[in-house]
């Protein structure tokens, strides 16, 4: 299998800044993310604090970033990364269908603004999970409930319905839902996951569902779920001045490392992370 020098997770300002800086140094990189680069970028109506671009809109800035990476032949891999395992010498990066290997990893995940729901942390791994396709076979002939925060969650629900006895789908967004007949849609607000020792039911505003498992499918799982063993501090990834995390060879940059949540801080951190990763790579070669 090809082993990349650096894998960058996230295609927002911090990830892109890391990518261009690593590419300039001739490193073999792979970057995972979104086709529209970053939702936070597209949503910004007016940006007045990005040096050199006074009064630009988020989408205009996005287009400039896109042109920059196109010119440097950097292509975004739009697969979602489900897990990253520190194997010692390298990192194994898992998406739904494939495994990638990289010597260094830069986490440029942004921040998930939605709060965990009541009971989520307590029952994590005891019926609560963040990757339905990963654990689906454990729910053969059981009842599974999926809280879907994006379109991709629909295909996970369809997949789980091939094994589970019953699948409930709670959409957390408005759209047309492409779900098969075996999946029951419940339009209601989830309040709490309840169970002693393991998940027993999901309490919603107007109803309750008895269930063996609850999967919470957002754009990104919490960083410490994504990278087992990763140290956090006040809800953010803990880094030092070199943007190193507690795991050797794993760096983090941008909103995921803490406030302020700003473009220029994000691109600066992405650059520092990439340059340090490059440095480390060349010291390995020596």
């Amino acid at each position: 299998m090809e082993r990349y020098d650096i894998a960058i997770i996230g295609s927002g300002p911090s990830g892109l800044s890391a990518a261009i800086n690593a590419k300039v140094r001739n490193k073999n990189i792979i970057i995972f993310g979104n086709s529209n680069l970053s939702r936070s970028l597209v949503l910004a109506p007016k940006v007045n604090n990005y040096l050199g671009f006074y009064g630009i809109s988020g989408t205009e800035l996005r287009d400039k970033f896109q042109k920059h990476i196109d010119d440097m032949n950097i292509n975004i891999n739009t697969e979602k990364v489900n897990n990253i395992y520190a194997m010692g010498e390298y990192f194994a990066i898992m998406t739904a269908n494939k495994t990638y290997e990289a010597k260094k990893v830069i986490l440029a995940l942004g921040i998930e603004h939605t709060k965990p729901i009541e009971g989520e942390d307590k029952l994590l791994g005891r019926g609560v999970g963040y990757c339905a396709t990963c654990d689906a076979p454990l729910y053969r002939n059981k009842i599974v409930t999926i809280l879907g925060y994006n379109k991709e969650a629909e295909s996970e629900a369809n997949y789980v319905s091939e094994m589970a006895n019953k699948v409930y789908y709670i959409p957390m967004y408005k759209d047309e839902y492409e779900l098969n007949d075996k999946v029951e849609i419940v339009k209601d607000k989830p309040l709490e996951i309840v169970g002693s020792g393991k998940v027993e039911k999901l309490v919603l505003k107007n109803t309750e569902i008895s269930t063996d498992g609850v999967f919470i499918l957002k754009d990104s799982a919490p960083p410490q779920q994504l990278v087992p063993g990763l140290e956090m501090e006040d809800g953010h990834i803990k880094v030092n001045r070199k943007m190193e995390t507690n795991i050797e060879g794993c760096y983090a940059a941008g909103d995921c490392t803490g406030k302020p949540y700003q473009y220029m801080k994000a691109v600066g951190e992405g650059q520092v992370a990439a340059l340090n990763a490059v440095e480390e790579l060349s010291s390995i070669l020596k």
Partner: protein
Amino acid sequence: MVKEINDVSFESEVGTQDKPVVVDFWAPWCGPCKMLGPVIDEISNELDEKVKFVKVNVDENPLAANKFKIASIPTVMIFKNGNPVDTLVGFRPKQSMVSEIEKHI
């Protein structure tokens, strides 16, 4: 070496031991389990004298998996005198796995 045990041998392999027993619940379809396998192998070589290491395939051994409420794999459980004393859900890097296990030696 990590011994493969099953529903039938579980009690005798795990239940009646003086030293702590580390049980790795896994399945062949589980990606993270494949990653954790070699990590546990390495640790078992290092801690061989103080700790016993076994693994249970949850596909073939539903009784053990149900009894210990395995809802996500890999799950590593640590037993002492037949009683579960710790449950570690999901992959973790070698060093952090070692320090969790060493707490029970």
